């Protein structure tokens, strides 16, 4: 196997997995919060928040990457503050995760939000009457009921993160072993005449990983749905 892929490609595979997993895991709680706020709370600026969340979807990825570079780079207003706190994204794999997470965020939020909106508020009311405070109602009633939505959102985000390229390379460039993800590697091969075969190998790996994750999520979601339906 190692012969089939060069060490640099293996690195890219490993890195992509790491980046996509981190992006998904870290953005999940935030995505949940934002989705809940958009679905259930009415506050001034709600539409603004909604718009901002969708921005990475609307903007060409390069623009998103450029904006990340300007704001979260070590010289940027946010990035320089974070640097003081010891958090550096620029040229790190964490930056790749930030870029992938940002791009995937709107997908995750939409999926979770739709499933929150589908939960019957009467069930939450029942939990309240039984003495559960709001946060626990969320944890014990809402959360388990939206689990299929959360899984769908997470897997969408993961898949998107696996494929994300434009924002990532613009923000953290392509440093083999640090920020060279699978899509960057694929892109590189596609720039060179006659390297389509090498690109194809990486595409296959990428597809295999994402499909495995997808299948796992489907199985999980089905099991949950069955349990809720009471069979």
């Amino acid at each position: 196997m190692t012969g089939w892929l060069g060490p640099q490609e293996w690195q890219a595979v490993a890195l992509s997995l790491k980046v996509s997993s981190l992006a998904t895991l870290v953005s999940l709680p935030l995505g949940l919060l934002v989705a809940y706020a958009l679905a259930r709370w009415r506050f001034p600026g709600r539409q603004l928040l909604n718009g901002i969340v969708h921005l990475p979807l609307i903007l060409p990825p390069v623009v998103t990457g450029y904006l990340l570079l300007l704001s979260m780079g070590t010289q940027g207003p946010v990035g320089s503050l974070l640097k003081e706190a010891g958090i550096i994204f620029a040229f790190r794999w964490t930056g790749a995760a930030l870029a992938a997470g940002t791009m995937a965020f709107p997908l995750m939020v939409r999926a979770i939000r739709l499933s929150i909106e589908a939960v019957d508020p009467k069930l939450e009311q029942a939990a309240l009457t039984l003495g559960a405070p709001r946060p626990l109602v969320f944890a014990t009633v809402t959360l388990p009921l939206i689990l299929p939505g959360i899984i769908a959102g997470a897997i969408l985000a993961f898949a998107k993160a696996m494929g994300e390229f434009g924002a990532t390379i613009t923000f953290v460039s392509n440093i083999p072993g640090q920020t060279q993800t699978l899509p960057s590697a694929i892109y590189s091969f596609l720039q060179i005449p006659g390297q389509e075969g090498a690109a194809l190998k990486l595409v296959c790996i990428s597809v295999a990983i994402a499909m495995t994750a997808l299948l796992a999520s489907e199985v999980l979601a089905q099991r949950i749905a069955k349990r809720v339906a009471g069979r």
Partner: protein
Amino acid sequence: MTLSVRLRHGFGGFALDIAFEAPPGLTVLFGRSGSGKTTVINAVSGLLRPESGRIAVDDTVLLDRAARIDLPVHRRRLGYIFQDARLFPHMSVRQNLGYGRFFAPRAAPGLKPDRVIEMLGIGALLDRRPGALSGGEKSRVAIGRALLARPRILLADEPLAALDEARKAEILPYFERLRDEVQIPILYVSHSATEVARLATTIVALKAGRVERAGPARDLLADPAFTPTGIRDAGAILSARIVAHHPDGLTELDAGGQPLLLPRVAQPEGQVLRIRIAAQDVILSRARPEGLSALNILPGTVAAIRTGEGPGALVSLQTPAGLILARLTRRSLDAMQLAPGTPCHAVMKTVAIAPDAVGPAR
């Protein structure tokens, strides 16, 4: 503990404007479909915020819109049995039952889970999910969930509607126990004469969003002018003390010095019972009748007569045991020449006093 409720609320075409007091015991909310019963219960639970009003249990104010007090739902310590079961679909029956318990203070008084599960007959369902339950099973689990939350107020919206008679008969005593032993205020919506007669300490009758009648159940039920479940279900409530359990399966009571026989009850000798005698089941006779299968005969005098539009009439008879209601036709009324003050006998069959019309006195 007394629950006092004053509410005003409007939904488009429907306006609710009510005030009542629910003294200790069980208050039955009575009224036709759409009269506002669920709305009242929702307001007490805090799930509905009325446009104006005040709700308090003794000195604890749950809601006072004028004073901007609105205790959050989860701090009201309720047991709410919803009209629709509203079980948590993702939890097993066991988890549903345990949900409220988890949030209740340990020290709060309440029924034991095993007993509740047994009386509801849901022991075999504990590991199922609500999706796999029958309609009646769901409503039983919903009752159990509310009872086990060790509530400080119990709200029950037609809790027994989906159940068969036998099951109802098994569950009713538990509401009695809650009423008599745990002593929490209970708001109970029901259309059933049996349930009203057996459980109600207080009755609040709603009509199109307003209180039509309200007061102690004993007074209201002995009033020939008040027949909430229809004249057919009218009936008075008496108190009587157990004198003896006879070997042939009958129990003898002393009702104001008069003997009354009824099918054996579980309570010990000496205990005072509340018994309901349906107006339907009472035959009147000027002379003391002989040779009938009916074993109970109470002498008395006619106290009041109500004739309605139909051919029937309700007569209330003052007996040593208390006021009794009897229903008969106007033709009989005339034939027997009954009028207030006329002495006459009430004849009741032993079996007419069903076990579900007998309960501990309040």
